[in-house]
């Protein structure tokens, strides 16, 4: 049994099946089962790759190594918990009259197909297909962002489509330039976009073209990561789409886009002397971090605020990978994992909190600890985790990034500390009254699924206290591949 094939086949079959059978009582369960299948297959694939090392699939079309198998496992895991969360959440939305039956069907099938496109983007060996899959991931989520069909959600989806479309067009131009540079070395064999071939000849690629190509790729995929100044789509899409979509956009799509940049960075580093690609990423990362931190305090909508927090963290991660080297790459990968788990947990909690209070406006959400202590604590702990409080895992990765920056790029330290401080003050100051204030809200018709929140937070806590040795090995290996 080829677990890789299963990892890709289950979501696409699940998506088609959910389209065909439509919205039935057991459709949410089918969604969970498909996600569970994907997760199990990806877990077995991970075990296989860790044991036997990298391998190809379908000739040289797909390539799985310790770097991307790690993202595959993470994507499948968050996909699973999100599908569990979305069952009762979407039913509540339906009872509130916000969603109709056809839209629920659209949501479930698009969710599975979105998972499929992300898994293809992660595992493909062909940088052209990577682009195609990234674009497909945008297309599947456009209709999900506008699922409520409100004026604001349509606007958010339109902005998302146009901005990401323009961004991804830049990435295509970058890919064309990369192909052009590669063709001069590898010839017109059709292998010139295969990453495994490119990485072998990366030293011979023409530096001028590669520099131009990397700029286009960074700006293009960077739009999807949410790097400033092209981040405007992100808060709108996260705030106006349904919460499960916010959770996967924030927790997964941003990661996948960043993964695309990382793959290209390895090539650019090999071709261009003097750390050009790294410096560019550090600059963009730092700018993003600062811009997002200062926008955080102005937010009134809870999902919008946490969307800005995602931008902030993406900036920090981009900065970490920009610094490069074993420690910074390790920290970057760790931070990506921690951010995915924590941020999706926060969105789950926020979703229920907003549903209970009937609004996303933070001043109207009060006293969660009294209406539903579990959600209240979930939100509070999630917030503490994302703000980098010890003993959660985010603290470990942020601490590593900061100390590495102090050692090698001391000029950046004040900026980093300032931005993190501002972000802390902004978020904590707003979450505290939401959790501990006075309230009079009514209970929900369907009991919320709270397990995913705490499973994620428990994992983040565990990694903060103790990283299992196999995970460390795995991170080390992936970090080494990034150079």
């Amino acid at each position, binding site marked *: 049994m080829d677990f890789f094939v299963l990892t890709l086949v289950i979501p696409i079959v699940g998506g088609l099946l959910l389209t065909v059978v439509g919205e039935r009582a057991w459709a949410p369960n089918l969604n969970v089962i498909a996600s569970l299948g994907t997760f199990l297959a990806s877990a077995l694939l991970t075990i296989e790759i860790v044991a036997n090392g990298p391998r190809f699939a379908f000739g040289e079309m797909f390539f799985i190594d310790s770097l991307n198998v790690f993202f595959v496992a993470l994507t499948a895991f968050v996909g699973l918990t999100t599908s569990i969360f979305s069952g009762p959440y979407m039913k509540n939305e339906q009872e509130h009259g916000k969603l109709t039956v056809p839209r629920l069907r659209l949501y479930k099938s698009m969710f599975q197909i979105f998972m499929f496109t992300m898994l293809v983007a992660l595992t493909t060996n062909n940088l052209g*297909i990577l*682009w195609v899959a990234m674009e*497909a991931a945008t297309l599947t989520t*456009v209709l999900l962002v506008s699922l409520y069909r*409100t*004026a604001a959600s349509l606007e958010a989806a339109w902005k998302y*489509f146009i901005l990401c479309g323009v961004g991804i067009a830049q990435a295509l131009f970058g890919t064309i330039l990369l192909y*052009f540079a590669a063709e001069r070395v590898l010839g017109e064999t059709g292998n010139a976009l295969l990453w495994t071939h490119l990485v072998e000849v990366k030293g011979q690629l023409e530096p001028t073209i590669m520099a131009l190509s990397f700029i286009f790729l960074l700006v293009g995929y960077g739009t999807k990561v949410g790097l400033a100044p092209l981040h405007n789509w992100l808060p709108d899409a996260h705030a106006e789409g349904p919460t499960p979509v916010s959770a996967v956009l924030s927790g997964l799509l941003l990661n996948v886009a960043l993964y695309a940049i990382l793959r290209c960075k390895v090539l650019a580093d090999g071709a261009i002397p003097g750390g050009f690609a790294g410096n560019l990423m550090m600059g963009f990362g730092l700018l993003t971090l600062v811009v997002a931190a200062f926008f955080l305090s102005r937010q009134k909508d809870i999902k919008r605020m946490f969307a800005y927090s995602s931008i902030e963290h993406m900036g920090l991660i981009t900065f970490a990978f920009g610094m490069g080297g074993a420690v910074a790459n390790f920290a970057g990968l760790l931070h990506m994992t921690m951010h995915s788990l924590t941020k999706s947990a926060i969105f789950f909690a926020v979703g229920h909190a907003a549903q209970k209070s009937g609004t996303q406006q933070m001043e109207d959400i009060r006293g969660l600890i009294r209406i539903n202590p579990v959600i209240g604590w979930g939100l509070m702990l999630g917030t503490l985790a994302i703000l980098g409080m010890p003993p959660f895992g985010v603290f470990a990765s942020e601490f590593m990034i900061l100390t590495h920056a102090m050692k090698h790029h001391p000029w950046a330290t004040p900026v980093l500390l300032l931005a993190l401080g501002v972000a802390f003050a902004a978020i904590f100051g707003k979450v505290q009254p939401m959790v501990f204030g006075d309230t009079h809200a009514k209970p929900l018709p369907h009991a919320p699924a709270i397990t995913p929140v705490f499973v994620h937070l428990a994992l983040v806590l565990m990694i903060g206290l103790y990283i299992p040795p196999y995970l460390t090995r795995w991170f080390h290996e992936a970090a080494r591949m990034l150079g």
Partner: protein
Amino acid sequence: MNLAVPLSSQLINLFASVILLLAFAMLAQRRVLALINLFALQGLTLALSTLVVAVTTGQTHLYWSAGLTLVLKALLLPWILHRLVRRLEVKGDVESLIKVPTTMLVGIALVIIAFNVALPISQLSNTISRGTLGIALATVMLAFLMMITRSKAIPQVVGFLAMENGLFLAATSATYGMPMVVELGIALDVLVGAIILGVFFFQIREQFDSLDIRHLEKLKER
């Protein structure tokens, strides 16, 4: 045979300049239907220029991509757009946010920038159509300008698709086209994107009774 290479090269340059000219024409065109026709014409020219490259170099997959371009960009997408315009009944004038002469001047500046950016790459290229890389980048930038200056949804989408035309021209001029599987994937994405946008137009119309995207300016940082 000695004559054939310069002739084909001239033909490719001619087609590329026609594509650039059409990009300018689209920038100035205020009517939706005429704009879509210009887009179809640009697709046709793109297909012809790809065909010339294919005939000259004898690369089989370029014939396929020429055919694909013809079907998708000269026929299918314009047809979908025409249908949309008819179904949505938006035939009137398209207003520009900036005056046309200003847009044209900005466009000329963009073309100069594009040529300068492409210059070092063109010199490295040994394909017969290497001179067109600058034009391709200029087409991308003009399409981008069109998306910025238009306030109605359909012209924005035409700008988006025209940008894809420019990218395709870049792919055939700098290299002899991307690998077939990638090109098919890109074509599929463009098609699905156009269909999703079609659905989307109806949603926007239902909500706002208009396709003027100036209605879509509520979500801002305050």
